[in-house]
């Protein structure tokens, strides 16, 4: 129980610090928000009034508390450019980003775990060289580079898949999957390479353990040793990098959404930076970082449920 309490406390502190950092960075900005909204030539009385209205005349800690209280109520302020609540804009883009992330993660697991297991067995053989090379390529080719090459192959040359745009799931599930397949492939090409590395290393390490020797000397078949003993033990540590994979996939989607013109959070971020729409950027950054912290927390808790030894360490 003490373990969970400690983890939860750490989770809350991290969340608090993340929001503090997000708030603080935007305070470095030179200039005054009221002047930015009304313009340099505005009436000083009006500026003063607006400053008071939006709370810019209050001391810094007070402003942070006001902002944080707003965040907890789901009020992230209003976007300068779209003249809409930031929370509404984010929830609009969220479905796209989340579908892309889930799809990419699914592909990552489907590619990464079997390939990692296969490489742990056959990695040293000559016929495995192309696979090893591909996974090395996955670690080195940036996802957005990969996506443009994929567009060239699957959209321009073969004309199998669309190169841009997004169809919502409700409209046509098939078209939705089609529009997400290339971006998800581009992201999972890199992240599955990371997963392959971990699975391979983890399986190789477990195969040297004493319980494997015991199982073998009892006369267990190689398949039984692999599926019954090695696999279960080696996939537990792999779970820990799941939090990292979520971070990877979300980070990748920021640029990938721009490559494929998907109307998600990543695309909102880059357009809001181009127009210097600060409340929107602040909200988006906080949201993405929040998702990462929550996912890492969930992975931590799941890990300790699956492998209770962790709680004692």
């Amino acid at each position, binding site marked *: 129980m003490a373990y969970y309490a400690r983890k939860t406390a750490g989770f809350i502190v991290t969340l608090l610090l993340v929001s503090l950092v997000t708030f603080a960075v935007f305070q470095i900005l030179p200039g005054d928000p009221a002047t930015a909204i009304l313009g340099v030539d505005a009436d000083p009385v009006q500026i003063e009034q607006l400053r008071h209205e939006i709370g810019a005349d209050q001391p810094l800690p007070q402003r942070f508390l006001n902002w944080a209280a707003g965040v907890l109520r789901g009020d992230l302020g209003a976007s300068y450019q779209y003249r809409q609540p930031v929370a509404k804009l984010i929830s609009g883009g969220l479905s796209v980003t989340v579908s892309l992330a889930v799809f990419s993660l699914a592909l990552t697991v489907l590619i990464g775990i079997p390939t990692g297991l296969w490489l742990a067995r056959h990695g040293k053989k000559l016929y495995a060289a192309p696979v090893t090379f591909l996974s090395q390529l996955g*670690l080195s080719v940036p996802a957005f*580079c990969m996506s443009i090459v994929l567009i060239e192959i699957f959209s321009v040359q073969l004309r199998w898949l669309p190169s841009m745009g997004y169809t919502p799931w409700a409209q046509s599930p098939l078209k939705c999957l089609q529009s997400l397949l290339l971006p998800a492939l581009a992201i999972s090409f890199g992240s599955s390479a990371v997963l392959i590395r971990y699975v391979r290393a983890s399986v190789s390490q477990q195969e040297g353990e004493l319980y494997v020797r015991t199982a073998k000397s009892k006369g267990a078949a190689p398949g039984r040793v692999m599926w019954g003993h090695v696999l279960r033990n080696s996939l537990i540590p792999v779970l820990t990098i799941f939090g990292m994979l979520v971070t990877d996939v979300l*980070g990748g989607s920021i640029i990938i959404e721009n*490559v494929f013109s998907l109307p998600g959070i990543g695309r909102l971020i880059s357009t809001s930076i181009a127009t210097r729409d600060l409340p929107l*950027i602040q909200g988006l950054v906080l949201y993405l970082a929040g998702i990462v912290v929550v996912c890492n927390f969930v992975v931590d808790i799941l890990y300790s449920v699956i492998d209770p030894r962790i709680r004692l360490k």
Partner: protein
Amino acid sequence: MRFSELWKRCWHKKRFVAGACMVALMLLLMLAGFFWMPYDPDAMELTNKLQFFSPAHPLGTDQFGRDILSRMMEGARYSFLIGGLAVAAGFVTGGLIGIFSGYYGGKLDELVMKLIDVQMAFPGVLLALMLIAVFGVGLGNMALALGIMAIPRFARITRSGFLKYREADFVKAARVRGAGDGRIIFRHILPHVAPDLIVTCSLSFAGAVMSEAGLSYLGLGIQPPTPSFGKMLSEAQASILQAGWYVLVPAAAITLLVMGFNLMGDGLQEVIGHDR
């Protein structure tokens, strides 16, 4: 292990040699550009746009008829410059943070670890994007943002090294002889951590090149007409229907650089790993 020995052993690692060749190729391309370029990288020739590879333009021409090889030569400068600046910033700042946190420990260490946790919560280029949003678009600001992104990695590696060696026998012996903290840190412990730091430099360089390309692709990094691999990719994407081959040129350059530094880092890591 001494540096000369480390260096010698690296050349027995296939990965390191392959990586070094890739980096050397790009380095050569960049260095040659200081003495000779086929064309002025900014000279436009609209009658001659999107030409495929030819003896006159070995890597073809872009959508304004500019020579792509010349633009690659100049673009490589910015990749190396940004990568170098980001690694230098991360190395110095992250290294110092790691030294203090690992060697002295205590409350400071807890705080540093927490801050690194917080930094890890910002996925991919998000932190750099946030800083660019605040400081504005430009080469210097991007180098700063990528430098800040590189700090935690260096801090973590240095910290774990110092944590490992601060109670080691040779440190105790030095302390008995009356060596001060400064001497112990820089003369006795740092040389043991240095190989790990070199690996981190190599991997961080690859990461910075990748992020730079991504930011420039989004139009938030190096600004046109200055050539950069990322920007060239987005230009190539815009003309993908007329000239699909153009995409492959900047994509290959980015891949060579990133893979080169990654492989060198992996090779070094293998050598250090064997030593322990």
